[in-house]
């Protein structure tokens, strides 16, 4: 993504306070994940948990429940 597009891009899940996609935290939330997988893998990518609706998701453009990260 160009610097211009990055600067003017709409906020998304990754900037939202509800969104949790830190790999270490995901591995502690999903017990058993490290047995045969990893949160540091390409297949997980930047997916994470939305704490608002408690669903696992790929990040997208912010929804109406967006709260900026502090």
């Amino acid at each position: 993504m160009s610097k211009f597009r990055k600067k003017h891009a709409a906020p998304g899940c990754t900037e939202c306070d509800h969104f949790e996609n830190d790999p270490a935290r995901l591995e502690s939330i999903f017990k058993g994940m490290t047995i045969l997988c990893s949160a540091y893998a390409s297949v997980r990518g930047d997916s994470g948990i939305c704490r608002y609706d408690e669903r696992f998701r790929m990040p997208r453009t912010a929804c109406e429940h967006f709260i900026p990260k502090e």
Partner: protein
Amino acid sequence: MANDVKAKSPFLVTEDWWAVYLGLGIVVVALLFYLLGGTLKPLAVSPPKWQSFDTVIQHFRTQTPWYLLQLILWAVVFTVSTSIMGLKASQYLPGFIIIFIASALILVLGQWQVAHDHNLEPPILALIIGLIIGNLFKMPQWFETSLRTEYYIKTGIVLLGATLPFTLIIYAGPIAFLQATIVSLVTFLTIFLVGTKLFGLEKPFASVLGAGGAVCGVSGSIAVGAATRAKKEHISIGICVVALWALVMIFFLTFFVKATGMHEGIAGAWIGTSEFADAAGFAAAASVGGDKAIHAYTLMKVIGRDIWIGIWAFVLSLISVIYWEKKSAASADRVQAKVIWGRFPKFVVGFFLASVVMSITASIAGQDVFDASLKPLVIGPVKTLRTWTFIFTFLSIGLTTRFREIFQFGWKPLIVFTIGVAINVPLGYFLSTVVFKSYWLSL
């Protein structure tokens, strides 16, 4: 830490890319040493087969400095790379030193003639010892940091690429793809339809279970779970059910293959369609025996199943938005074709590159030079280092498995997944031993 990780390039924060750098790095260094008239062979040391313990004592009396050097090199590359990924080096390093020492002891034990006679090969030994210790004792947090099953197995798979001729990938790859696709589609549809129609599971939940059984185990569940916006608890259940069955299948497949005396190539192909996770399948394939089982397994699992996870995630994401949530695909910005590459298991790039590099080198050198020097001085050490990564992997699987944590699911998802297994395993067996038998026999 979250912000640090987010700010870094994906080429630095995923273990897939680090496995590529590390695996290809080892292959290139092995070739450079060879071209300069040397070899990595002394460094790639491992315990010899033994009947008398004197053999072991004598071996370590002369080889201990090489073990220490190997430990230092593994420790440096793994600690630096995991530290860049975001793990604490102060936690990872001491844990890895323990893993290396434990792996050396397991290799010694596994090379004992008595262990060999009782089918206790190093992979199974590492797994069993890990399971016993992991379930009897509570592991300290700093030690858990070093149990990176996926990182170790991905590094091993890249190293495996160097020992797998590219011509073999071209020859058997399409057959592996065809067989794996048949099994994957049937398994996914079985789990999905049984789950949604008979047991009333939510469609995203049934997809998480289906992808776990059909594509690439827990990784498949994670990728498809994110694509279909599955509930957090459904991802947790999917992880546990798939991991449980993957562990069961390691022992079942190994026992069945050995009990029936199945041909190695056929066994590898069957394990490739029947196992649910890369690392678990390698434990079974490596326990079966020689290279043919490992090669057939790799072709089936990596080329036949793993590399298509991005496509599965993309298609299920589309279906989820258009049919399950009744939205238009155009208005749903989460359906993006870039997910196909985004979820692609990047370590496969290293696997292919390692195979191409070594195949070209072998072709230039000619068959005589390959057999006389390239094989013992380059391929041999790479294979030994691969064995070490596999033992790190199997030990990590055992040590991270807590049965009391896994049994956190209801009966419904377990029964649904079990029905999928009941279809998957016989179908894979039929295709491997009857329909495509000649291909796997000729590997």
